[in-house]
């Protein structure tokens, strides 16, 4: 907006001079508070000394700022700025500072890169990274297609659509801690356990679920998918509604079957949404904490130890905890890695997301 107005102003001014002063005035008055300095300066020089309105438009004093409603704008913005500042920006800055300190939150000492050195030499770090990557991979393998398939199936259903949507979304409404504790009960590894008893009827199991290094992680992913899929299903459903139905009709006329319609019409239209949910899911699962913390505490034998759980253990694991420096150091490194990853991802996919 501002660029166009500055581009335009000189021309109107030039013509305005021949049209008479009133014309100039009308063109000059409208400038919104957002009008740039450049225009004000130009206006002043163009109109010369005699024009009275000149200084009023040009001078950018606190008084004019208040008169134009700047105060109202500020007061309105202030609550949001304060909330963001106190609860979002300040903690971010503080955690970066703490990453270079040894602190118990009462007294702090600068230790340079010691915290980073400590974290990077932690023998558990490689395992935590691998576990997080494994969780991420499993979550994508199971958690990415499931909501998509669910949404496509649901969009095809003609009757009771609302019921299916509610059922799919219901797990999202349950508080996450509650659903984890519920599933922990389901995952009872005795043959009397809920899942084992159910699977027992069809001759399967009993499975060790959380009590085995191979089973533990898939068990966590299963619950996480159940708990999180509903929200993604809603997003996909909304995107599916936006697909023009005449495209399907045209495809049908061209003799496309259900798979071809899916491949050539539905998925291309979902591309933008898929692209966003994919990166959101990666960022979210890279920070998985709740499931390993509540289900297994990282066990058995570190099989579900994730990076976030390590951060938590640094800061609060022992009762006297207080290794906040290492915890924030690892957090900062994770944030940097995720930021770099997001950048690369957006770069790489820029071309095909626009097509």
């Amino acid at each position: 907006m501002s660029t166009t107005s500055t581009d335009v102003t000189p021309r109107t001014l030039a013509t305005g001079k021949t049209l008479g002063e009133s014309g100039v005035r009308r063109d000059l008055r409208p400038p919104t508070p957002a009008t740039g300095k450049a225009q004000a300066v130009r206006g002043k020089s163009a109109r010369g000394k005699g024009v009275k309105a000149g200084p009023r438009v040009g001078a950018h004093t606190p008084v004019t700022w208040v008169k134009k409603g700047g105060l109202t704008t500020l007061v309105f913005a202030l609550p949001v700025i304060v909330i963001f500042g106190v609860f979002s920006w300040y903690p971010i800055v503080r955690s970066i500072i703490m990453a270079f300190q040894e602190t118990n939150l009462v007294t702090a000492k600068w230790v340079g890169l010691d915290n980073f050195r400590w974290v990077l030499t932690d023998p558990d770090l490689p395992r935590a990274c691998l576990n997080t990557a494994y969780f991420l991979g499993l979550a994508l393998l199971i958690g990415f297609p499931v909501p998509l398939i669910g949404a496509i199936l649901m969009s095809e259903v003609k009757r009771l659509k609302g019921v299916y949507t509610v059922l799919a979304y219901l797990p999202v409404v349950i508080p996450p801690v509650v659903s984890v504790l519920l599933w922990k009960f389901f995952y009872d590894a005795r043959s009397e356990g809920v899942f084992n008893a159910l699977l027992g009827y069809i001759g399967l199991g009993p499975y060790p679920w959380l009590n085995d290094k191979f089973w533990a992680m898939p068990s966590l992913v299963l619950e996480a998918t159940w708990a999180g899929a509903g929200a993604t299903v809603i997003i996909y459903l909304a995107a599916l509604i936006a697909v023009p139905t005449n495209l399907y009709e045209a495809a049908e006329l061209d003799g496309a079957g259900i798979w071809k319609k899916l491949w050539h019409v539905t998925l291309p239209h979902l591309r933008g949404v898929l692209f966003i949910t994919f990166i959101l899911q990666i960022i979210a699962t890279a920070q998985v904490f709740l499931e390993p913390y509540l289900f297994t505490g990282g066990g058995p034998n570190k099989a579900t130890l994730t990076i976030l759980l390590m951060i938590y253990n640094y800061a609060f694991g022992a009762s006297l905890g207080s290794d906040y420096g290492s915890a924030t150091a690892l957090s900062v490194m994770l944030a940097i890695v995720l930021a770099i990853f997001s950048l690369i991802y957006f770069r790489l996919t820029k071309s095909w997301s626009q097509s």
Partner: protein
Amino acid sequence: MNTSTKRGLALLAGASSLAMLLSACSSNTPNSTTSGSPAGGDSGGSDQVTLTVVGLKAGSTPEAYQGLADQVADFQSKNPGIKIVTMDYEWKATTFAADLAGGTLPDVYEIPFTDSKTLAANNQIADMNDYLSQFPYGGAFNASVLQYGKGTDGHVYAIPAKSIYGIGLHYNRDLFTQAGLDPDKPPTTWDELRTAAKAITDKTGQAGFCQMTSNGTGGWQLTVDTYARGGSMETLAADGTATATVNNDATKAALQFLKDLRWTDNAMGANFTYDWGSINQAFAAGQCGMYTSGQDVYVSLVQSNGMDPKIYGLTMIPLDGSKAGVLGGGTLAAVNTKTSDAQKEAAVKWISYFYLDRYSSESAAVANAKLTLANDQPVGVPELPIFSDQDYANYQQWIKPYVNVPLDQMTNFTSKIGAATLINEPPVATQDVYASLDPAVQAVLTDQNADVSALLDEANTTAQRAIDKAASGDEQ
């Protein structure tokens, strides 16, 4: 005119929303001045001292809250200048650090034996040395208990308060009977324990023996098993530097025992994610034949897990070798370092009243027992002496008429614990050392091919790292 009115209204609206935000943020302030800070206005005017103290666990029964309120009223009537404010509290390794950091702890709070030295070294709890003589018996605490409350400077910081425990072996008398075992003759050696566990699993289908594995309790219980075989987790050099020794032979034997019980006998059930709370649940539900935990856990089994007292049995943990001992611990009362002198005086009175008077005064002991009984809670659960043995014997005599705990099912423990050696928890970086051992315990129970020595070597490296870090932290 019109626009300026609008603008004025908008300004007003914005300002009022800002005011609401600010008032929402500041509405905590009056609370926190009454609860926390020493220089709060209310202690100034009328010599009234306000003291926030540890109350009950959140979610306790209404009767328990009523009982606490009665005690507070009674205390305040005896000490008119003191106002007591109770806060729900439960010590947890995972939340204590956050509370400590956030400054949300009450003026008087409870900490485990293992934490006081570090807290004292960090100046995070008040030095109570000058007040020691004001406690019952002139502060003549059982020396082996009081040592936990002392800082490295020899001053007393935290006061022994309650739940002084030694680890015992808890067993389910019902399952013993069903398995053809004599519930009055529980196992006294590890081999007998193994045979009994196998019998229980074979006959009843329940786990013969359960073991905690999570949130540091795996390492805690492995330390118990190590002490019972004469080993130790740390050695202290003359200059005070600690070395991790978690890969010692006793610990290896303890882990190998668990592995055999799990894989050779298959007598440990199918769940291996237990911690202190969930193993109590499983035991109370009849899913565990035996497990080891503090001898005071009976209270939780009855109060929180609805266990039928009839099925409960308590005996000594098997001790193997002349150096073997029982791991002991307990709860200390600490005073917030931010308190004023007047609040410290009040804290001494409250700690004496709430935790200790029952051991020194018959009327206090009886009143407390009656109150506990009225609230339908266990009276007479075995404790280890907080003052002298004779004082504890007197106390037991005073409360005898009110005891509602099946003490005759615990005699295998109570008759022998006095003669056993009590061994302290590892002194340096205790919780970290425990945490480093959790994975090893989990591994032998969930992986048939787990390598005991390799696991313990790995844990030793982790433990040593934590110990070194703790040592370097103390120097600053």
